[in-house]
């Protein structure tokens, strides 16, 4: 079971709150199921063309294109590829591995959306070829503003399965 230090859980909630109503995103690194490092990654979904290179389905792309760039981050995230690469490189340097990918749902429940499942499924195929570890997916829901809900899932083959984590 994934163990996440309380300060890292708090830091993810802070990240989500700072960026609301936009979605935040980031990576958790660690070893032996213990998270030791949080990496905030910039959400660049608003950049021109971002929605067309990512694994969004046609309806999501159409929805994003109806929104202004500022609004796009309210319903989606795309990690800054450079920051993502730097985080993965830093993990290698520290001798830790990718444990989880996190992002926030500012107004919806902490359940993976179809877009989350599709993107994670596609990432699962390529990450194996690139020798990247299989991450868990953590979602921070701010639907209840007072009590943020954090949940963890495994996602593969178009299926999300609830997983457990423990605050330490």
């Amino acid at each position: 079971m994934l163990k996440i230090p309380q300060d890292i859980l708090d830091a993810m909630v802070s990240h989500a709150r700072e960026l609301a109503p936009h979605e935040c995103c980031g990576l958790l690194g660690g070893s032996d199921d213990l998270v030791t490092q949080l990496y905030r990654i910039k959400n660049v979904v608003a950049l021109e063309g971002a929605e067309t290179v990512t694994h969004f389905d046609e309806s999501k792309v159409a929805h994003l294109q109806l929104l202004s760039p500022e609004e796009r981050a309210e319903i989606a995230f795309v990690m800054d590829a450079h920051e993502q690469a730097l985080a993965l490189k830093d993990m290698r340097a520290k001798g830790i591995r990718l444990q989880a990918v996190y992002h926030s749902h500012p107004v919806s429940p902490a359940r993976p959306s179809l877009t989350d499942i599709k993107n994670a499924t596609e990432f699962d195929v390529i990450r194996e070829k690139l020798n990247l570890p299989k991450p868990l997916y953590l979602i921070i829901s701010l639907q209840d503003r007072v009590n943020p809900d954090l949940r963890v899932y495994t996602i593969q083959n178009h299926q999300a399965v609830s997983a457990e984590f423990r605050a330490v």
Partner: protein
Amino acid sequence: MIKVRIPTPLRPLTRGQGEVETKGGSVAEMIDHLEGMHPGLKARLCDEKGELRRFVNVYVNEEDIRFLKGKDTVLKDGDEVSIVPAIAGG
């Protein structure tokens, strides 16, 4: 020959192919060569200045070109290039 993995969102530009073959040279030359075969691909990967867009990574074998020599990274016969969209969701 260099093998290039094309992610699903860009396959409409490669007539559905998930893997295409290209010549060696630098990554920049490879992208130009791909553009010659599959027009439109370069604009999805690079901005007007030819820099890799902030939502896509290019790997040579298992290494991100950002940590090699970027676009000047030289490809050799048998290398596998992967075009990988940044992690995303909704």
